[in-house]
């Protein structure tokens, strides 16, 4: 369905109006901010590396709750002795319930057979009979499954990237569809990287929740970018004579309340999920809500401050090269 612009009353533009926010002029500040974030992320990546979730690298992880006192090194030694594989142990305590947890990470990229685990479980409970060990979570993974999931995930992400670009290209051909599509992708990559670096910095293992969060952010970021393109397309019809940077600044200014309001609503809800998961020590939800909250902010930022100005730069270059072509586009 197409919009009927004729029904809109003609509007007068005040060129130096206080209403227009000048995003384009400040573009290099925004680019620097993003580049700084990327560099910070890369430095962190170089220092601490990526933590792949057990799903992707394979291995074995056991989490026990316990009472009383327990020495992590003792537990690791005992576990190594029983299993005949190196085991590292870690102790965490729940903020809210004060429940203590023993996490055993069994080295190697292969799992432990269930019957082997039963023996291990019994032996460990016997050795620490006073601590009332109770298995709360276990994961035994052959890397095969994760690899298959990861490959499928990457294929899916790459394909949806390209199809989204084609869609934007076709739907926004009026405002230089290809450039719009490419810039939407740049904004997307920006957000995916921000989500990725969030995981690196907060040491959140990359697992299937990462893939889901990335996909959510992709959906969210594309939607955000498209709303602005849509406004640009509409204003392009309304004010054909307007220079491209003013057109973009105007369109962003017009829809910025919407961008912020939607973003605040999403950010608020996801942060709430994060805070409550943190209070209850539920790792799986924390590791999913935190990157999602940060990704939502990034999605809003990249659309306004990165995709818009970059698109303008592209258009201006084209204008220089071939002024006639753009006027007709």
């Amino acid at each position, binding site marked *: 369905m197409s919009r009927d612009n004729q029904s809109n009353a003609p509007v007068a533009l005040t060129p130096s109006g206080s209403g227009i926010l000048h995003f384009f002029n400040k573009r290099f500040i925004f680019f620097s901010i993003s580049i700084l974030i990327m560099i910070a992320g890369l430095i962190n990546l170089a220092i601490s590396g990526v933590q792949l979730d057990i799903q992707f690298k394979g291995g074995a992880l056991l989490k026990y709750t316990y009472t009383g006192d327990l020495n992590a090194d003792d537990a690791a030694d005992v576990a190594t002795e029983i299993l005949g594989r190196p085991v590292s142990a870690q102790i965490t305590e729940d903020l809210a319930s004060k429940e203590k947890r023993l996490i055993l990470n069994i080295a190697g990229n292969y799992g432990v057979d269930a019957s082997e685990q039963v023996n291990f479980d019994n032996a460990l409970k016997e050795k620490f009979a006073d601590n009332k060990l109770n298995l709360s979570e276990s994961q035994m993974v052959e890397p095969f499954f994760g690899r298959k999931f990861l490959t499928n995930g990457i294929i899916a992400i790459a394909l949806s990237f390209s199809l989204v670009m084609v869609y934007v290209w076709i739907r926004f051909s009026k405002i230089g569809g290809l450039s719009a599509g490419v810039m939407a992708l740049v904004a997307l990559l920006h957000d995916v990287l921000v989500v990725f670096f969030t995981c690196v910095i907060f040491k959140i293992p990359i697992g299937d929740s990462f893939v889901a969060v990335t996909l959510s952010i992709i959906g969210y970021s594309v939607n955000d970018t498209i709303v602005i393109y849509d406004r640009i397309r509409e204003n392009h019809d309304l004010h054909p004579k307007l220079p491209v940077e003013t057109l973009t600044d105007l369109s962003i200014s017009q*829809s910025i309340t919407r961008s912020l309001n939607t973003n605040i609503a999403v950010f608020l809800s996801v942060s709430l999920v994060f805070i409550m998961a943190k209070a209850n020590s539920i790792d799986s939800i924390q590791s999913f809500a935190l990157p999602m909250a940060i990704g939502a902010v990034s999605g809003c930022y990249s659309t306004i401050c990165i995709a818009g100005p970059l698109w303008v730069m592209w258009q201006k270059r084209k204008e220089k090269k071939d002024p006639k072509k753009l006027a007709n586009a």
Partner: protein
Amino acid sequence: MKSKKPVFFIVLLVALLMAYTAAFGVEIGSFKIKGAPDIRFGIDIRGGVDAAFQAANLDRKPTPNELEAARTIIETRLDNKNILDRDVTIDKDNGYIIVRFPWKSGEKNFDPADAIAELGETALLTFKDDAGNVLLEGSHVSNSAPQLNRQTNKYSVSLTFDEKGTQLFAKATKELIGKNINIYMDDTLIQTAVVNEAIPSGKAEISGNNFTYDTAKELADKINSGSLPFSLITKNHSTISPTLGSGALDVMLDAGLIAFAIICVLLIIYYRVPGTVACISLLIQTTGQILALSIPQMTLTLPGIAGVILSIGMGVDANVIISERISEEIKSGKTVRSAISSGFKGAFSSVFDGNITVLIVGVILMIFGSGALLSFAYSLLTGIFFNFVAGVTASRLMIRSLSDFDALRKPSLYTCFSKRRTL
């Protein structure tokens, strides 16, 4: 012009009915609509067991028939443990049998590692007489299959024995004419059959009036499972305890309800009439999504919840865009009625384009995704569907209807607080 006043109340009623159904489910006689209490949660949310079994001591890939037989063993054992809410799938390409089951509510004393180990044990299939003496073992059956008897047009189960089995079976049937042969898997009786005559050929048929293709195949699979040349091991399994699992569920539920309430309050304060309408339309979208999960019993996992959050975000966005547009149109001097219609018109293309791109992502995931991604894709696709139904259609119906009330035709009720004047 015909008054549209009642439309709002009709939509509101629909929203409330949907909310009630989604929250509690509806049961009238034998007719039942499943609501939120019946949602199947993935083990990452509710806690439970997820295990992939593979053949042990086998230097080749198991055949599809062998995998089917192995699945039957696992199914039977799950039945015996009274674990009925489960999901057993076969990955034929890679030779895996994948088992997932959530905890029953109130489950406390259950050793998951033990359960997985037991599920994977080699099945022992035996043929016994009434006194419990073992006549022969499943490993002597070389094949069993469902078959259709052309003359009687009824299904039966064929049995073929190996050499040793032929001897043992001939001996047993000779002695037991008129008596029963009982087939056991482990300690479970799976079939009793009366011996009609001595069978020396090594080929037999179990027939009965009640066999359908499915029941005959089920029995044949069970018998075949006794002759599996491999046992099952699990290098791949994970468990999440019931306490941890239900904790995750409660947290998500509480957070979701609080977030929904906060968003509604903000929308109503900021956008007045369109904001109120937005809340009702979000209610329709959210409850519609809950029903889309609970009625077909799709398993909801954490990535699925990410999809729900994304689509609710898109729903909020659609309503915010519409409310902003209407407010903008009114500020530019239009009457409420024409501001509403041009506001919707202006908002439609961005809502449409935004949803279509997300739809593309959802469809691609549905095709290429596996496991957790499917749950994400499903929530996303249903979310987009309800976004169109609620965010675009229901919102428009409600706003138009409300603007027919004299008291609700003040432009100030449709403008937001934003002081920004862009034009």
